[in-house]
């Protein structure tokens, strides 16, 4: 159910919109309340906090071809004159700029998606503690285990002259990280589960805990990879990392406005092998970035970005869409109410193919199965890749050799990598547990994933 406080502020938002409309051509109010429960049960640190909570408002106005915003804690009693004073600019340094104003359609609707599992704190702590204790019992090389349960309950209202929207949605992440030590060697492995239901998230967390430890132990003997060009099979998390970092950032259309993305010249052209289909959208699947309307009050979308290897379109917030003369896709997102909207990815993934995973492994003469996202960085202007897998498993003549390399950095040119994709598995997995920055800031919750992909890549 929508946060009561936020609901109580809807009449205030309507009044503020009405008052400010006397001076501005467009006015909207976005209200956000995020309640977060974080339970951390670890070898040396236990805590239960309500951190990363959020409660505040953004008032957006438009006049003379430019938008202005004011972020504040509360709107009750807030006078239109206070907003005007805060956003005033005396002789701003700028050339003329004339952005179109958004033309909204009448829309009033309330949306809700809540965690069905009503688990007590005690039950959650028991589950986390058992996994942590089992890890220590199973291997004496385990020096630290971190288990974290995070439930975010997000409520938002969006009020303008023509719109009055509200949404409430929950998302749960459960994270397991294990640190193992053998003399001077220290390695960390982790797994993060994201679900809309606490029970499902905890069940997956328990089911995968043994594998997390086994891999951490194996990482103690992992060697650096010999740099070179290899055949790779990417697991769904690395496929997602490539979809998100290597290509997705380049189709965020605020980058088109700034002429910062090479992709603008490739719409309608081949960017990948014809086996490749790619999607993004808050309603493209149920995952970490699944909401009902974005921070511009635009309904959430599902955009097919690549169809059979051909770039179809990008994704956009509404300011970028106004500047480009396109239709906003529901991808306008803020880190929090204190921050500006940017075009942001939501749930980003490659579509399934027809190949069997086993056939893909058998087809590799010499290469690596690359597993588990470590990190990545975008380069939308020049399409250079930096994607890091936590580890890689060597494959020779279609079989795993038992050798592990860690970490593995994929580099090269994005389009070369996507065009080299020669097999796509028939199963897709999407992991809803990541956060994404734009450049080096503006963090939002995202998910990504896809099938196993076979490609050729430069590894180091």
């Amino acid at each position, binding site marked *: 159910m929508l946060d009561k406080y936020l609901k109580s502020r809807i009449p205030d938002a309507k009044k503020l919109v009405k008052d400010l409309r006397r001076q501005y051509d467009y006015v909207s109010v976005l209200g956000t309340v995020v309640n977060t429960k974080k339970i951390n049960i670890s070898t040396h640190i236990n805590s239960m906090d309500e951190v990363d909570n959020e409660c505040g408002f953004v008032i957006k106005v438009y006049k003379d071809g430019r938008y202005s915003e004011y972020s*504040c804690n509360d709107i009750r009693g807030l006078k239109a004159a206070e907003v005007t004073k805060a956003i005033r*600019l005396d002789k701003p340094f700028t050339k003329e700029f004339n952005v179109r104003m958004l033309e909204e359609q009448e829309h009033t609707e309330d949306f809700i998606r809540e965690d069905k599992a009503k688990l007590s704190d005690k039950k959650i702590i028991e589950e986390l503690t058992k996994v942590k204790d089992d890890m220590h019992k199973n291997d004496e090389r385990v020096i630290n285990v971190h288990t974290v349960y995070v439930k975010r309950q997000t409520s938002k209202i969006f009020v303008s002259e023509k719109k009055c929207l509200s949404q409430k949605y929950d998302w749960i992440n459960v994270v397991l990280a294990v640190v193992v030590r053998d003399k001077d060697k220290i390695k960390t492995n982790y797994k993060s589960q994201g679900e809309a239901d606490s029970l499902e998230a905890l069940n997956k967390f328990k089911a995968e805990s043994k594998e997390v430890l086994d891999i951490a132990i194996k990482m103690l003997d992992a060697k650096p990879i010999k740099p070179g060009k290899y055949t790779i099979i990417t697991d769904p998390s690395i496929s997602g990392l490539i979809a998100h970092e290597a290509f997705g950032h380049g189709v965020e259309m605020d980058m088109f406005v700034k002429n910062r993305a090479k992709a603008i010249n490739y719409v309608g052209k081949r960017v990948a092998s014809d086996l490749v289909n790619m999607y993004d959208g808050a309603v493209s699947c149920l995952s970490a970035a699944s909401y009902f309307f974005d921070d511009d009050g635009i309904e959430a979308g599902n955009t097919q970005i690549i169809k059979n290897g051909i770039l179809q379109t990008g994704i956009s917030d509404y300011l970028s869409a106004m500047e480009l003369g396109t239709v906003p896709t529901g991808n306008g997102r803020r880190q929090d109410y204190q921050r*500006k909207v940017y075009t942001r990815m939501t749930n980003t993934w490659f579509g399934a193919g027809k190949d069997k995973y086993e056939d893909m492994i058998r087809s590799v003469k010499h290469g690596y199965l690359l597993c588990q996202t470590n990190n990545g960085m975008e380069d939308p202007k020049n399409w250079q890749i930096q994607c890091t897998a936590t580890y890689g498993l060597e494959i020779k003549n279609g079989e795993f050799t038992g050798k592990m390399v860690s970490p593995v950095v994929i580099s090269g040119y994005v389009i070369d990598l996507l065009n080299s994709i020669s097999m796509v598995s028939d199963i897709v997995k999407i992991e809803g547990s990541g956060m994404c920055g734009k450049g080096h800031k503006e963090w939002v919750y995202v998910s990504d994933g896809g099938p196993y992909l076979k490609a050729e890549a430069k590894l180091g």
Partner: protein
Amino acid sequence: MKKNEILACLKANKKISGYEVSIVNKDSRELFYVLDHLEINRAVKIENTAITVYVSDKKTTGSSTITLTAADDKDSLNKKLNSAISKAKTAKNEYYPLAPKTENIKEKIEIKKDLNEIASNVAKAVFKADTYKNGWINSTEIFVSRFNEEFINSNGIDHVSEHFKVEVECIPTWSNKKEEFELYKFHESNKADYNQITKEIDEILKMAKDRSQAVTLKDVKLPKDLKVLVKGEMVEDIVYNLAENLSYKNTYIKQNHYQINDKVSDNPFDLTMKAVVSGCSASRRYDSNGVLLKPVKLIKGGVAKNTYGDIRFGYYLKEKKISGNLPVCELKADGVDIGKEKHLLVEAFSSPQMEEDSGYWGGEIRLAKYFDGKKYIPLTGLSISGNIYEDIKKVEFSKETTASKYYKGPKYMIFKGIEIS
């Protein structure tokens, strides 16, 4: 809620054995440019209040942090406090104390100009560098912020400090007529130094020009055992990683590569953690628990000599003088002159990587410059990687120094035997 009302609720609740209250007021003005067109301006005026309640007995301490919102009143705060007490009793830890009362810090800053005016002057300083025919500033974000922070704990600490911050994110672009190339610049400072901003933007524009002319490793054969110079965020990450290995926390949880008296490097450098260093915007006189910060020399002559950190893990380690969680590293070393020796100078990574546990460091390079003994050749599309715990043993430092957010010391770290691919 007003501070006194919050404190009254905390003092009245007898189940609470200690508390910390942090109140942060932020006032900022933000300008967002596409080329030199102002696309959107923003104002932020907010207050964030966080309360941590502690429930301790002789053997255990439990804590829980809550945040207050504009929606809260006395009744809702009391409900939140009771819920936090219950959580603190459930998630218990080994006993540790709160910071004891010491001198209370009262730091005020005077900002003579309006934040809007400062932001506008920063914009002028940025675009003053925009003077090239084939290069330009593609987009710019300017944040000028003033913070007022108050920290109170139940032992009588009541620190008040004010901070000022200028942040500029800038994307320079250069065209070689066939293709356009960009780089990334983030400037952060606790003063509005307009000349410095213009200088830095001019430098990054020239680096974008270098990237537009860069060749790849296919075009240049690099000699073996080439010296590699890294700077900026990579140096900050490496130095901070060395320091983290000597933190109370990592020492206590045994997630550390160094112990006291371990030889870190053959190079006899000194590394000191400090509270306040001129030019470092992360400087603070007290940490997030209110502990007054005292400098600690972590590494002396290349050998680990001390540890540092917060009150909790300092108490667990039975440290007599707890340093507090110091925010700034200062490194002192004899610098070398790279002179006419062949070397690779890394100007910009995509995103430098430094893995604390494994020691893996490096990353994909957007721009490097290879000095072949006569001239610099710009390079792109290459990567470097190594293990910092091995590579630091033979590290050298430049004579040229720098100061950034967390770090003051030699501008370049110089490594040999790094994998370049």
